[in-house]
C-alpha cells in the first residue's frame, strides 16, 4: 500500500474511532442525565414515614420488566427485589420515606395541629405553604406564623412542632372536615425538583430518593443472569421514624453484607464547621465509614475502594451524623457498609445534590452487586 493508501486507512480509522467515541461520551452524559430524570420523578411524589405507597408505585414503574416481575411488597410495606443465585447474601437498601408532619387533630376554629415525623427544624415551615395529603386528594394550607410575629420580642423564641398551626382558610372545624381533612392526614412542602448550576439540583427528599434512584439505576444496568451472588434490593419504609422497615427485613431474612444507600450529610457549606463530614459535592460517592449508628469495618471499606479504583469511579470516605438502615442488620451478624453521596442542607426543603455523584453511586451499586 502506498503512502496515500496508508493515510486513507489512518484517516478512516481515526474517523471510526471518532464515531465510536462520540456515542460513548453521549452515553455517559445520557446516563448521568437519566440519574436526575429518575430522581426528579421520585422527588416529585410524596411519602412520609408509613405513607410510602406513591413512592413505591413510582419506583416499580421505573424498574425494567424483569425486575418488576420479581418484585414483591412485604407485610411492612418494603419493596423487595431478589436477583441472582448462590454466593453471598447481599442487601442493598435505600429508604422511600421522607420527613413531614401528621395531623393530630382539628381545632374548633378550623385549624389543625400536627406532630413531626422525623427530625428537622419546624422553623423552616413557619409562615410557608404546605400540601396536606388526604383521602380526598391534596389540599393546600399555610403554617401560621407565630401569633405575635409582628412583635420584636417574638423573634427570639424557638418554633417547634407544637407551634405549628395549619390554616386552610376555613372558619370552623366543619368547614375543614368538608375539605376532606382529618386527623391522621399528613403533609409535606410543595414538592418540586429544581435544577441548579454546576449540574446540581435541589428539592425536598433528596434524602433518600437519591438512594432509591441509585438502586433503580443499578437494577436497570444489571443483567440478572450475570449476578453471581444472591442479591436483594430493598426500598424500605419508615427509616426516618426509627429504621422500622429495615428492622422488619432483618427479622425476616439473613444477609452477609448490607450496603445501606443513604445521604452523607455534608459540611461542604459556608454555614457548617469543616472539622468533619466534609464530603465535597462533585467529588464522587462517599463511603459513610462512621455515623451515629455504625462503624464500618476497615476490610470492607478497603475492598470497596479497590473495586471502585479498578473501574475509575471516584470515591470519598468520611464520618457524618445520622443513622442508616444497615445498622440494624449488624445485630444479626451482617456487615454494614453504607454508601452515600454528599448532600447539603439536610432535612430542609432545599437539599442539594450533584448529578455526577448520583450517577457514579448507581454505577458503584451495580459494580458491587456483580463483583462483591
Amino acid at each position, binding site marked *: 500500500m502506498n503512502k496515500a493508501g496508508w493515510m486513507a486507512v489512518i484517516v478512516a480509522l481515526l474517523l471510526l474511532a471518532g464515531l465510536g467515541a462520540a456515542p460513548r461520551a453521549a452515553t455517559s452524559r445520557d446516563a448521568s442525565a437519566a440519574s436526575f430524570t429518575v430522581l426528579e420523578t421520585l422527588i416529585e411524589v410524596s411519602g412520609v414515614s408509613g405513607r410510602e405507597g406513591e413512592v413505591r408505585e413510582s419506583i416499580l414503574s421505573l424498574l425494567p420488566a424483569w425486575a418488576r416481575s420479581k418484585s414483591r411488597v412485604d407485610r411492612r410495606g418494603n419493596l423487595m427485589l431478589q436477583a441472582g443465585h448462590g454466593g453471598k447474601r447481599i442487601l442493598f437498601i435505600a429508604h422511600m420515606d421522607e420527613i413531614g408532619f401528621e395531623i393530630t387533630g382539628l381545632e374548633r376554629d378550623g385549624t389543625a395541629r400536627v406532630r413531626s415525623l422525623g*427530625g*428537622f*427544624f419546624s*422553623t*423552616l415551615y*413557619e*409562615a*410557608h*405553604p404546605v400540601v396536606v395529603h388526604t383521602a380526598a386528594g391534596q389540599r*393546600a*394550607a*399555610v403554617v*401560621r*406564623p407565630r*401569633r*405575635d*410575629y*409582628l*412583635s420584636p420580642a*417574638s*423573634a427570639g423564641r424557638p418554633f417547634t412542632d407544637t407551634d405549628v398551626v395549619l*390554616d*386552610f*382558610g*376555613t*372558619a370552623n372545624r366543619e*368547614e*375543614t372536615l368538608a*375539605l376532606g381533612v382529618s386527623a391522621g392526614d399528613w403533609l409535606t412542602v*410543595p414538592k*418540586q425538583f*429544581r*435544577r*441548579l*448550576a*454546576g449540574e*446540581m*439540583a*435541589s428539592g425536598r427528599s433528596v434524602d433518600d430518593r437519591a438512594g432509591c434512584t441509585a438502586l433503580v439505576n443499578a437494577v436497570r444496568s444489571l443483567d440478572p443472569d450475570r449476578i453471581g451472588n444472591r442479591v436483594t434490593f430493598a426500598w424500605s419504609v419508615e427509616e426516618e421514624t426509627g429504621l422500622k422497615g429495615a428492622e422488619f427485613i432483618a427479622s425476616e431474612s439473613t444477609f452477609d453484607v448490607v450496603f445501606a444507600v443513604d445521604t452523607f*450529610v455534608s*459540611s461542604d*457549606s*459556608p*454555614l*457548617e*464547621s469543616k472539622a468533619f*463530614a466534609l464530603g465535597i*459535592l*462533585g467529588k464522587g460517592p462517599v463511603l459513610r465509614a462512621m455515623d451515629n449508628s455504625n462503624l464500618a469495618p476497615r476490610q470492607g471499606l478497603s475492598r470497596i475502594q479497590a473495586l471502585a479504583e479498578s473501574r475509575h469511579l471516584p470515591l470519598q470516605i468520611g464520618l*457524618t*451524623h*445520622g443513622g442508616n438502615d444497615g445498622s440494624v442488620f449488624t445485630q444479626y451478624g451482617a456487615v454494614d457498609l453504607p454508601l452515600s453521596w454528599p448532600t*447539603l*442542607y*439536610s*432535612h*430542609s*426543603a*432545599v437539599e*442539594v445534590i450533584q448529578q455526577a455523584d448520583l450517577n457514579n453511586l448507581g454505577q458503584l451499586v451495580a459494580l458491587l452487586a456483580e463483583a462483591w
Partner: protein
Amino acid sequence: MRRRNSLGMLGLFGMMLLATPASGDDLDSLRALVRVQGVSGREEAVRQVILTRLPTGDRGEVDNMGNLTVTLGSGRPLRLVLAVLDEPGYVVTRIQEDGYLRIRRLPRLPLPPLFDQYFVGQPLLVESGGLGPPINAVSAVLSTHLQRGRRTATAPPSRDEDIFVDLGARSADQARAAGITMLAPVTLEKELMTLAGTRVSGFALDDRAGCEALLRLARGLDRSRVKGQLVLAWAAQSWVGGRGAQRLARRFTPDEVIVVDLYAPNPTGAPPAEPGGMLGKGPFLASNLYADEGTRHLAERLRRSSRDAEIPLQQFQIGSLNDGAPFEKHPVVVVGIPIRFPGTPAEVVDLGDLDGLTDWLKGYLEGRP
C-alpha cells in the same frame, strides 16, 4: 401579541407602551402577578404582566421612577387610583470566590422581625443578567443532622447579611457564567395557593391584589360613563419610601386620590383574634384621623356608592396614608381588602373581598347608580 412601542420620552426614562387584548381569567391574572419578581426599582416583570392584560389600545406610560399609568378620558375631575407594584426583596451585593452570593434586603422599613428567616432554607429566584428566565437558587441552611449537641441548633440567621445564596456554582466565574450580576434581584419562588372556598395565599399579595383590582377596572369599566379624566397608576418603589407615589404626586394634580392597599386593621401590640382583619367581610374604607373636609366628602361619596351597590364595607381609622401621603393636600382615601399574615410568605386574602372591592370602585367611578 403585545406591541411594545417607545412613543416618546417622559422625563429622562419615560416611555409609552401599547397594550394587547386582555386574556385569561382573573385567577390566572392574579397568579401571574404573584409569580413574577418585582423588588423595588426592578418592577419590569410586574409591569409586563399588567401591560399584557390591558385592553387593546390602552397606552401604558412608564415614568422615570418605574410607575405605570394608564389614562382614560380627559378634563376634570381628574381622579387617580393607585396600587403598588413592588414587593419586599433582596439584591445581590457580592459574588463570592466560592460561587455563593451575598444579598441585601432593600426595604429597611419595619417588616416582621423574622422576615429574613422566611427566606432561609427556601427555593429562591435570582434575576438573570440576560433575557432568560430567573435563575434557580436556594438559601443555605444548617443541616439538621450536624447540629446535634450544639446550643445554636435552632438559632436562625437574624439578618440579611447572614444569608448565603447557593445557585450551584462553586466559583465566581461559574456564577457569572450562569447569568448572575451584581444587584440582581432575589426573591422567593412564589406561587398562588388556592385554599378553602375563596381564600388564596401567596407572598406579595400585598399589593399584587391591589394591582389586580386596578387591572380589572381597566378591563371592566364602562368608559362612556367615566366623567373627566381617570388615571390608573401602578406605583413603583413603594417599599423603599413611597418614591413612586411621590413622583406621581408631582406629575398629577388630582381632584381625588384613591389608594388601593391591603391592610391588617389590627396593629402590632394588640394581637387580634384573627390576625390581619376579617377576611370575607368585604372591602374596607380607611379614614384618615386627620382628614380635611375634601377627604371626608370623598369618603362619604364612596360609602354612598357601596350602600347603593349593597356591598358591605369594613371601616376603620388609620394614622398613616402610606402611598397616599404625598397626596395629602388633595382629597385622598385608602381602600382595599383585609389581609391575613401580612409581610410573610403565607399572606392570605379572600377573592370575594377582591370582587367586592372591584365592583365597588367600578360603580363609583362610573357614577352609578
